[in-house]
């Protein structure tokens, strides 16, 4: 069975904290920063469960502000 490793990076300054990525993620990788805000004053999205990421890009696909980059490795 090939094993899938995924990862995301988030442009926190572009993020408006809409939470759509958090909801779209099938493996609960993301969360909004509970305390910190970015320069715009938004609780931005952040990775809380990196190991669970499967690189499906669902988060990036629904992101209205194109804040998310997605990486994926398939290990045979």
């Amino acid at each position, binding site marked *: 069975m090939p094993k899938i490793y995924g990862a995301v990076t988030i442009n926190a300054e572009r993020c408006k904290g809409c939470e759509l990525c958090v909801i779209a993620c099938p493996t609960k990788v993301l969360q909004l920063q509970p305390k910190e805000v970015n320069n715009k004053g938004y609780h931005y999205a952040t990775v809380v469960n990196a190991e669970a990421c499967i690189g499906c890009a669902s988060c990036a696909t629904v992101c209205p502000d*194109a804040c998310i*980059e997605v990486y994926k*490795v398939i290990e045979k």
Partner: protein
Amino acid sequence: MKQEDIICPENRVYAKPRLLNDNTMHYCPGCSHGVVHRIIAEILDEEGYADNTVGVAPVGCAVFAYKYIDVDWVEAAHGRAPALATAIKRLNPDRLVFTYQGDGDLAAIGTGETIHAANRAENITIIFINNGIYGMTGGQMAPTTLEGMKTATTPYGRRIDLNGYPLNISELLAKLDGTCYVTRQSVDTPAAVKKAKKAIAQAFANSMAGRGTSVVEILGTCASGWKMSPHDANLWMREHMGEHYQLGDLKNEVKQ
């Protein structure tokens, strides 16, 4: 496998499209406009339209579309985008010409220009964002506002006896001989976004092939205008907007 080993350019499967620039979009958090802008920018780059496109921006929330997608743009007067696009395409027939319009722009003040451009089978793509409300001016009733829906100008809900019926303009456009492709999509889930992107790519291909007018309606959300969280707005859109405005192709005369 460590995060730093995964995060390297050769493993990147998704990044902000090149044609979507670094300007922060002025849209509210969770606004559908951002998603649609993003997929348009992706298609323009992926399909090789970057150096051959004129976009026509509306009046409404998307008035600044030209600030975010790096192609040539003309900012139209309210409702007149299809008239501009008509001339731009006829005078520059090898370009991809598309309009980007909201429900007020397209289905209220610009109904005449929209219907006549479509009826002339202008080889343009009309991207129509329907969120049932006037976002930019502060949430007033749109022609597509649902019955009972509260807006700044229907504070007790839209009443048919006072305000008439929600306008199914895409169904109307599908009836015209000049349209080749009329479809209604949404961008609320990853699967929906992928379908919407395919639809816009199809519409652009139609325009370049001279098949007539293509209309891609996107049921959007207006979390601020609807006074909901972005996620709740997505759910409400699917349940209520989607009930009145059925998703899917209304007309597709292009056999693939």
